């Protein structure tokens, strides 16, 4: 969403500043900027990846664990999912601001914000993935003498994996967009280009940030989508 806002914002700026007739206003300055600052862009792209990777890893660890736990304690399942849902509705700027007392400003704050946003798809998908397993499968596993831990690791998680994978995919794509906002408090990444660009009214800079963020989102989505399909659906 944030991504769309920033791109929409750019369109508005572009439209209102109405460039001179015949004067190049998009491709030429844009490519010139790419060529001139490619090293900086590369560093920021890597920073962006790093932010998302770290956040995703932490979010999977927490989200899957919470999803597994609530699958055992039915009464708290929906309250917990609702909490993660509420987290998701907090505007990202507000979330980041609220985390400043805990994490200060910078990379850690960005990671923490991303993790909180990513929890919903991970918790919910882990929980539903486990809940959707045919009861007969679990009954026969238990009836044959598998311990609960073995049922979890050998039956439940493998069978829920395709659904968990779908959650990871949603979480990652979500994270790429929100990650841009984290640049506001100095978490680094391609968001910095957008914020600096807006400040300096430098359109090629804003475009570069927006386009590269979209590319990262699309590429990660494609890779994860491919991985998801490779997982056997039963």
């Amino acid at each position, binding site marked *: 969403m944030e991504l769309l806002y920033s791109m929409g914002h750019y369109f508005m700026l572009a439209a209102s500043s109405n460039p001179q007739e015949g004067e190049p206003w998009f491709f030429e300055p844009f490519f010139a900027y790419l060529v001139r600052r490619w090293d900086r862009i590369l560093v920021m792209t890597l920073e962006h990846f790093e932010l998302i990777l770290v956040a995703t890893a932490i979010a999977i660890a927490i989200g899957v664990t919470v999803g597994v736990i609530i699958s055992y304690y039915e009464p708290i399942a929906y309250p917990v999912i609702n909490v993660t849902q509420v987290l998701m509705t907090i505007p990202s700027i507000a979330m980041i601001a609220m985390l400043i007392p805990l994490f200060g400003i910078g990379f850690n704050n960005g990671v923490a914000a991303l993790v909180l946003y990513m929890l919903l798809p991970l918790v919910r998908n882990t929980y539903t993935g486990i809940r959707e397993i*045919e009861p*007969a*499968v*679990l*009954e*026969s*596993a*238990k*009836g*044959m*003498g*598998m*311990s609960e831990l*073995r049922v979890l690791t050998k*039956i439940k998680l*493998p*069978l829920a994996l395709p659904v968990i994978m779908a959650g990871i995919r949603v979480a990652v794509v979500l994270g790429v967009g929100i990650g841009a906002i984290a640049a506001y408090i100095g978490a680094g990444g391609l968001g910095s280009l957008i914020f600096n660009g807006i400040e300096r009214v430098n359109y090629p800079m804003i475009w570069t940030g927006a386009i590269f963020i979209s590319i990262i989102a699309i590429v990660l989505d494609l890779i994860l989508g491919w991985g998801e399909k490779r997982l*056997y659906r*039963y």
Partner: protein
Amino acid sequence: MVIKLENLTKIFQPGDAPAVDNLTLEVDEGDTCVLVGPSGCGKTTTMKMVNRLIEPTDGKIYVENEDVSKKNPIQLRLNIGYVIQEIGLFPHMSIAENIATVPRELRWPKQKIQERVDELLSMVGLDPELFRNRRPSDLSGGQRQRIGVARALSADPPLMLMDEPFGALDPITRSYLQNEFLRIQEKIKKTIIFVTHDIDEAIKMGTKIAIMREGKLVQYATPDELLSAPADEFVVNLIGGNYSIKRLHLIRVEEILKEPFTVSPEDSLDEAKEVMEKSQLELVLAVNGEKHLEGLVTPSSLRKEGERVGDVMDTPDLTVDSGATLNDALSVMLTNGEGYALVVGDENRLQGVVTLNAIMEALQDNEK
């Protein structure tokens, strides 16, 4: 493996009527005890208390004189085969991995597990080469249920719990698997608790039948006793009318086999004609040296051109396996409009012939 249920009671919700009500029952070593009764009468609950998937409210269960409530549930279950109607195969594992579940829990060496898997696949009539690496979703309902049985037998448990194992299958597959299981059971001699709501299946599979109603035991008897002396009106209604027809499920073809007239496919037609004259049924069977059934010779096949029996014989189609009941044999006869059925054992070995007359005689003897 003797099992004793003593005053077993299960009340799910305080205030509810008991699902199992003061049930006392003893199953002898090697017996198949069938729990039968209308839906909701507490059969499944009773069975699940044996492997502690459900804990009793009151009463005791002894397996081999040991109180199961004092045993570790995991250890207990690893020693009890468990088959349910929905089978519950693990969809993300191959057939071999499915069958290997309990041996893997018991940490058998890999080699031993592989050998056991192949042995079991062969036992349930599926070619290990073909089936080992398939997924459960590639299998038909009947094949899946065979895997379910093989999986339950994998660590050779002395006791088996089977909850409507053939209930979801079509009648033909069901009867086929029932016969196959009876044949396997004859070799492996497990102590079995078998749940069904189908009285015909109970009569066919059980050495003892426990009739249940609203959680209580109504009658516990052999199939024969049950048919000749039903305890009350409820049992009479459950059995339904037509005792002679029910008996068809009770008697096996093996008990009334007749020695067939046989020739070899190598024999000449003249030799076959000679044998044919002795046969009242006008039926001669071609078997090879190892008694494998090769073909069927009738008067009309002898009128065909040819030198040897092998040239003129027909494909034998009216076959039932040796575990079949008279009901199975009769149904083959009726389907084909013939008065006989051929009984074959392992590897298509001819065991004998069942005739319509023999079935009628058997039923009359049994009435007395």
